[in-house]
């Protein structure tokens, strides 16, 4: 169907509106992070751009300055209060370790498990697949108590390794199923051609099939990373001194009030690693999502 001039314009406008709708909260959050407390809580209405931008919120969360220090430095003592537990540098490091670790472990296990499930015929294969799928139905809250006890006995409570393991367990089913669908898109003839060419199973996997599903690996990794990066419930129950980002942010809601400026600053900062990660795998990601067009 040929689009008329106005249909085209209308579509462009719709696209801009949708993107705007999704981007607005991010924009507002980022904007808030640069506002002084007085602009965040203005009794006369919403402050858009009519404020003096400040990096105080970042100085507190990212540089570990206490608000008292900053207040004395600037000579403005409005709204001083709370201790200096807003330093989030360790939190970001911990979150990165947990997210990268669990993503790497999940992808490593999933690419191998999914290859076997896609290519090999063994007894109980379908039942096994159904079982994997059923793991996805399970809400984490349902297993949290036994997990806490198990982790306690294994001394994994309040460790980064513990979080890596638990995030991997939660991510693994969806990662395996996703990777399997990417492998299924590669015709089995390719494996057979490589087999006739003289490759062993391992060589077929490493040199032929895995490179052909690179895009799928990227997509799976992004999914796992984002899940792990934003995972809240399990981290909350399984850690005490180690704080991942979502848990840390909740501590900014205190008995004396919510520190919106710090929340916004940390929230804005938290977007950056995912953004960089997706940027890194973007090329593969697009290929992964359009893998179908490579087949024929």
């Amino acid at each position, binding site marked *: 169907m040929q689009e008329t001039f106005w249909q085209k314009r209308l579509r462009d406008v719709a696209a801009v509106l949708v993107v705007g709708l999704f981007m607005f909260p991010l924009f507002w959050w980022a904007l808030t992070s640069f506002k002084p407390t007085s602009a965040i809580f203005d009794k006369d209405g919403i402050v858009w751009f009519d404020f003096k931008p400040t990096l105080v919120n970042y100085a507190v969360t990212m540089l570990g300055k206490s608000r008292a220090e900053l207040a004395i430095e600037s000579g403005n003592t409005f709204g001083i209060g709370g201790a200096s537990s807003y330093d989030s540098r360790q939190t970001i490091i911990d979150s990165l370790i947990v997210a990268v670790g669990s993503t790497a472990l999940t992808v490593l296990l999933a690419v191998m498990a999914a290859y076997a499930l896609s290519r090999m015929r063994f007894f109980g294969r379908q039942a096994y697949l159904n079982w994997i799928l059923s793991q996805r139905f399970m809400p984490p809250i349902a297993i949290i108590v036994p997990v806490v006890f198990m982790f306690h006995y294994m001394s994994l409570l309040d460790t980064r390794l513990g979080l890596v393991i638990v995030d991997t367990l939660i991510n693994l089913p969806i990662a395996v199923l996703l990777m399997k669908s990417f492998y299924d898109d590669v015709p089995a003839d390719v494996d057979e051609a490589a087999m006739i060419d*003289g490759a062993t199973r391992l060589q077929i996997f490493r040199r032929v099939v895995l490179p052909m599903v690179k895009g799928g690996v990227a997509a799976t990794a992004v999914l796992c990373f984002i899940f792990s990066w934003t995972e809240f419930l399990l981290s909350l129950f399984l850690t005490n001194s180690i704080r991942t980002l979502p848990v840390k942010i909740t501590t900014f809601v205190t008995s004396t009030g919510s520190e919106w400026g710090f929340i916004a600053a940390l929230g804005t900062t938290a977007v950056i690693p995912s953004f960089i990660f997706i940027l890194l795998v973007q090329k593969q990601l697009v290929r992964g999502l359009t893998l179908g067009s490579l087949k024929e």
Partner: protein
Amino acid sequence: MASVTISNIRKSYGGLEVLHGIDLSVANGEFVVLLGPSGCGKSTLLRMVAGLEAINSGQISIGNVVVNDLHPKDRNIAMVFQNYALYAHLSVFDNMAFSMQLRKLPKDEIRRKVEWAASILNLTPYLDRQPRQLSGGQRQRVAMGRAIVRDPSVFLFDEPLSNLDAKLRVQMRTEIKELHHKLSTTIIYVTHDQIEAMTMADTIVVLRDGNIEQIGKPLEIYDRPANLFVAEFIGSPSMNFLSGEVGAEAGRPVVRANGVTLPLPLDAKVTAGQIVKYGIRPEHLRPGAGSEGIPAKVSVVEPTGPEIHIYADIGGQEVCSITQDRLELSPDDPIRLVPALDKIRLFEPATGKVINGPDESRPRTLLRA
């Protein structure tokens, strides 16, 4: 190069037997086509030769080596697949070089062999491209290149042209035949396309439901099909079949079909009262002049260019007649059709077996020479 011997091969999936004891021997350098409708077991048989399917019972030898328990890579075979099965992430060069890289051949030898294959297949300008940048025909040539660089003793082709468009298919057919001529390697080629089989094969093996129906040279199979199935499967438009009963008229054997008398040669080995299927190919059933021939009524006329296909009704049974004469005919015109007596094949309706072929008594070697 090597011969291939398949003896009493059986294959079942679960309780279902799909190959019922296949015996076949392929001579060194022979181009054998396994032909049959889908589900006849031809691909399964090929994959068993390749080592991609386990053999339930029987024996396959390549050269003088029994390969039943050999891994595909140790059979010295090469296979070309219907969907090309190229390594999408590798360049054309690396696709062809892959097997040699695995065997750790010296780099300059790999380059020499790939370039040789590329020159045979007209792929030299494309060596640095990715498979997805190639057309279907080029992709299939890369798949063939991947096969020939290995200098295999047997080439296996699994419906390699099915994904190509009609024009390219004709072109690749010629190319594969030329390739066979150049390399004179043993080829086993699977297809459901009888034209491919007829044009390329030294020997055609017609398969149905896991059994071999007939083995022979293309024209042998076309001219003297062993049974109804082969007669019907080979040839387009396919052979005409008219059901009838053997009788006699003026001292000659004839077949009576719905009140129409069909002539038979004098030496037809039939007995009166026998129910038969009267088979005659369209090109052997020509429009006759005057009052000779079988009376019929034209239903459809299809001019194809070199010839005209006339579909006509003989006593309620439809037949096709092919002529190169420029006849002016329209539907419902009366027409008379004259069968070539020495080309008539009679089949037993129940078993499908051929009863009488005018050429049957002629020694087969005479025709082979």
